[in-house]
């Protein structure tokens, strides 16, 4: 590696590489990384990448993200490379993909949807109607949701 490593290797945890440049903050929101935990987090943004030009990288120490947590990242970083690190080595590489439905990940953004009542107990469900082009609709009211709206409405 010619370039000096910006962030040191981690012993155990999860590395999310090839995040679209500038999107790492949204990735952190989606993973509920908000400073309330004590494990070390390293964030690198807008670094050169031979693969995608510029990219963000997120290293989360001492936490192995579940497949369900990782899959939601397909919304904003579908081509991210994900590695589970154990004892400084790559123990697993993970593929991510949006399922048919996002359950309790974000609320419907439509102001008059039944799910806007915070006391209603059924899960928030957003259906992935099509992957390409990405089309996501509330399973209850049917309103289309943009990725931006979903990120604003993360639970």
């Amino acid at each position, binding site marked *: 590696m010619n370039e000096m490593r910006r962030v040191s290797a981690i012993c155990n945890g999860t590395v999310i590489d090839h995040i679209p440049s500038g999107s790492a903050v949204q990735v952190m929101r989606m993973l509920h990384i908000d400073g309330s935990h004590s494990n070390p987090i390293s964030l690198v943004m807008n670094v050169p990448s031979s693969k995608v030009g510029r990219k963000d990288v997120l290293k989360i120490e001492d936490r192995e993200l579940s497949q369900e947590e990782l899959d939601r990242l397909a919304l904003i970083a579908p081509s991210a490379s994900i590695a589970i690190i154990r004892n400084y080595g790559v123990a697993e590489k993970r593929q991510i993909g949006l399922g048919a439905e996002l359950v309790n990940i974000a609320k419907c953004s439509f102001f008059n949807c*039944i799910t806007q009542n915070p006391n209603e107990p*059924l899960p928030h469900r957003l259906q992935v109607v099509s992957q390409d082009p990405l089309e996501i609709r509330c399973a209850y009211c049917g309103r289309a949701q943009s990725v931006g709206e979903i990120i604003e409405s993360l639970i």
Partner: protein
Amino acid sequence: MDLITMDDLTNEEAISLLDDAERLLPIARGDVHLPLLEGKVLANLFFENSTRTRLSFETSMKRLGGEVLNLSEVGSSVKKGETLYDTMQMIDGYADVAVIRHPRQGAAQYAADAVKIPVMNAGDGAGNHPTQTLLDLFTIRKGQGKIEGLNVVLVGDLRYGRTAHSLSHALSRFGASLTLVSPDPLKMPSEIVRDLKSSGCHVEESEELSPAISSADVVYMTRIQRERFPDEAEYEKVAGIYTLKAEDLRSAQSDMMVMHPLPRVNEIHPSIDATSHAWYFKQAFNGVPTRMALLCRSLGIEIPEAII
């Protein structure tokens, strides 16, 4: 079977429900007594005002020998802040089928997900109103002999009117050409127009009604809703623009149908009532056989081939 949007029915299923409704006509008229739904209980859950939809579901159930529970928000636990989920748990225990109208969009699907009994959407906010659409299709078939490939003009509040949304979707599936006539602020939402066009439907948008009349098979009027306007003067400006009078129909085809989900305010002048074009009161009656067919279908009750 739940009915939340017209997407819950294939074209074949919709046609087969219209055929069922046709067979149920003698019972709907009260000429034949056949208690197909004896011992069954319908819960009418109207969280928003309704006249025709609630009454026609009630009479449909009663003509078939069933019973009806009516819940209105006033004086019920809903006013005390009960969630829709909790209300539905109670209804699941009290009734065999539920009909729901609610001011919030998605409420009918949510209610259906909360219970085991079948749920029918009788209007959710500005969303869908599929039982109205079925009775509209039934009425159109009565007047035109078919529902495929017709020229239909939808007039009035196409922005908020859930009736217009549901009906335009259904008609597009049956190869209709649609002319959407509304004042600019009440135009059909662009995503619906996009959906209609992408399903191969020919769509024209206009602010003028009269040029569309001569080639129309159906002119479907809707009420411009006063409550949508910030001030009275703005409402008055558009309220009267689509008033259909008998003399406006001189160029119309002889079998052209004037329809309206009712209530009308001033969209259709009473001078039309006595003409052969007036279908809106028959349309209101057609809610009965159509909803009978839906109740039987959702409760899994077979309708005899011939009812005499």
